């Protein structure tokens, strides 16, 4: 068997793959956080809970209506995104003029409510979600075994991430969005309905989290607390990358996933903390974050 630095290459590539999968979720979630923060000036603490809702929605769709993975990949984000729009209209819209902290506190409260309700109805144990028929099995690449579903998750995350980047940085709608982030009053004066744009942005960010949740459902079990710990890691990812750049969020997300995977191979006991340690180092060396501008 081939070994690299004394580690069997199969284990190394296996952990790298897990790292890439985790990295996909970090990238998708930090991207959503960055988009929401750009428009709403709110750090969406409920992002993890909304990711969990995506997985739960997929689970419930399968359980009660027999709707499978492929339609759920579209329907679940739509449902959760619509729920996000309701949240924005009922709660968040009153906070834009206040300090950022209140947005964090309110969405933290929402996260508690969502997680609490989910725990009451689903219990704390994880619920299994079967892999879709068409993505079972895997490829033998010679140096490692690549399950089809994992490959699918990585490819789709990359497509979604770069699609979002393209939509924001290269299209007309994206230009409106960036302009409204810089100066909402002026953009309104040009006849663009900024409040609707803000609402839809939040809906989109939430739908993105739910989409990640549906993709995560077959890999991790569906459980009410799946989002809570993930969101804290994603916060660290956001601090490292800075929220100023979409591309930065994507690169940081995938990069940190890989670093975490490698840590699992070489120092397994540090794998939970490595991202936080990197955050501390980045704060010492580059306080503004790797891709950050200003504060």
């Amino acid at each position, binding site marked *: 068997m081939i070994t690299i630095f004394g580690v069997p290459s199969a284990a190394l590539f296996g952990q790298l793959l897990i790292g890439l999968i985790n990295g996909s979720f970090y990238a998708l979630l930090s991207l959503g956080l960055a988009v929401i923060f750009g428009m709403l000036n709110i750090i969406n603490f409920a992002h993890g809970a909304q990711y969990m809702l995506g997985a739960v929605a997929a689970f419930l769709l399968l359980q009660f209506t027999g709707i499978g993975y492929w339609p759920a990949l579209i329907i679940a984000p739509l449902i959760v995104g619509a729920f996000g729009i309701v949240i924005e209209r009922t709660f968040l819209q009153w906070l834009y003029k206040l*300090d*950022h902290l209140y947005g964090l506190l*309110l969405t933290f409260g929402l996260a508690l*409510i969502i997680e*609490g309700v989910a725990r009451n109805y689903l219990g704390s144990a994880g619920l299994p979600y079967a892999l879709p028929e068409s993505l079972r099995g895997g490829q033998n690449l010679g140096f490692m075994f690549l399950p089809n579903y994992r490959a699918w998750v990585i490819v789709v995350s990359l497509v979604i991430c770069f699609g979002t980047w393209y939509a924001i940085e290269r299209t007309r709608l994206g230009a409106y969005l960036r302009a409204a982030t810089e100066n909402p009053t002026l953009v309104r004066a040009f006849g663009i309905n900024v409040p609707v744009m803000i609402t839809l942005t939040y809906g989109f960010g939430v739908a993105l989290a739910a989409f990640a949740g549906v993709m995560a459902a077959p890999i991790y079990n569906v459980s009410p607390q799946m989002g809570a710990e993930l969101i804290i890691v994603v916060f*660290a990812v956001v601090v490292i990358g800075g929220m100023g750049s979409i591309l930065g969020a994507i690169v940081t997300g995938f990069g940190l996933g890989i670093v975490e995977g490698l840590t699992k191979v070489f120092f397994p006991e540090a794998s939970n903390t490595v991202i936080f*340690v990197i955050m501390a180092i980045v704060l010492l060396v580059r306080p503004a974050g790797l891709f950050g501008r200003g504060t």
Partner: protein
Amino acid sequence: MQATSSPVAAGPVTVRQPSLLQRQGELIGFVVMVVALIIAPFFTYPLFLMQAMCFALFACAFNLLIGYVGLLSFGHALYFGWASYLSAHAAKVWGFNPEFAILTGTLTAAVCGFLAGSLAIRRQGIYFAMITLALAQMMYFVALRMKFTGGEDGIQAVPRGYLFGFINLNNETTMYVFVMVVFLAGFLLIYRIIHSPFGEVLKAIRENEPRAISLGYKTDRYKLIAFVLSATLAGVAGSTKAITLQIASLTDVNWPMSGEVVLMTLVGGLGTIFGPVVGAFVILAMQFKLSSVGEWVLVIQGVIFVTVVLLFRRGIVGEIAALFRR
């Protein structure tokens, strides 16, 4: 985000020169609080009250940061929890007297506060909250891994021991008096800090940091000192809690605890002197009454968060103070 850290909009803008009326109000409030704490054990469980006083001190320490410097730390469980672990370990394994056990825990919190604070103050606003939360989560994983913390079991059956070697804290009344003295001392210290020239600079940073910098204050240094003070006092609360309830566990160091202290302070009133105390008693009483509904406590806490942020940003004490000012 611009460099202008906007002030915490909710707190009533403090009157520059504390009026006689305000000073009187604070004095009356303090007397009422002390009297209430003395007679309360005759009406309700002393253990509950002791726990509530520990959490009240924790919330006051947290409020020193959010209410007077405008810094939201979302990771105060780190200082509370780790102080609680070290104090429990010192009392149980090293056989320290309670006062030295508490001192050990407090020093731990101070060191953690210095390290985490030095990192966190490098970023402002919302990033500050995320950094403190992430660092606290890191130390939660460390606590989960380390042997001496007992993992899921925590450190149980911590001996209360003899204060200064001769005062038996296993007696419920002595324990109560001790916790009350610690709480009131911490409370008065925070009051003193807030009303000192140092505290005035902190408020200036809260209101307008660039301006404070332009006046020549090294605001980073002030923020760090305030952070360490807050962490240290949270450590006093955590250590005392470990001795009083005779347990230190993962609950104390995990993120929901950080959220809980935010909730207590918010409900009582950010930037008010008595707010955190009132908030701590209200939230703990609520948890105590609702212990039968299980997971719904989480939902109720969430609902309180949302309601307070949307409708009563000044909190209980803040709203009452606003009524009097009218």
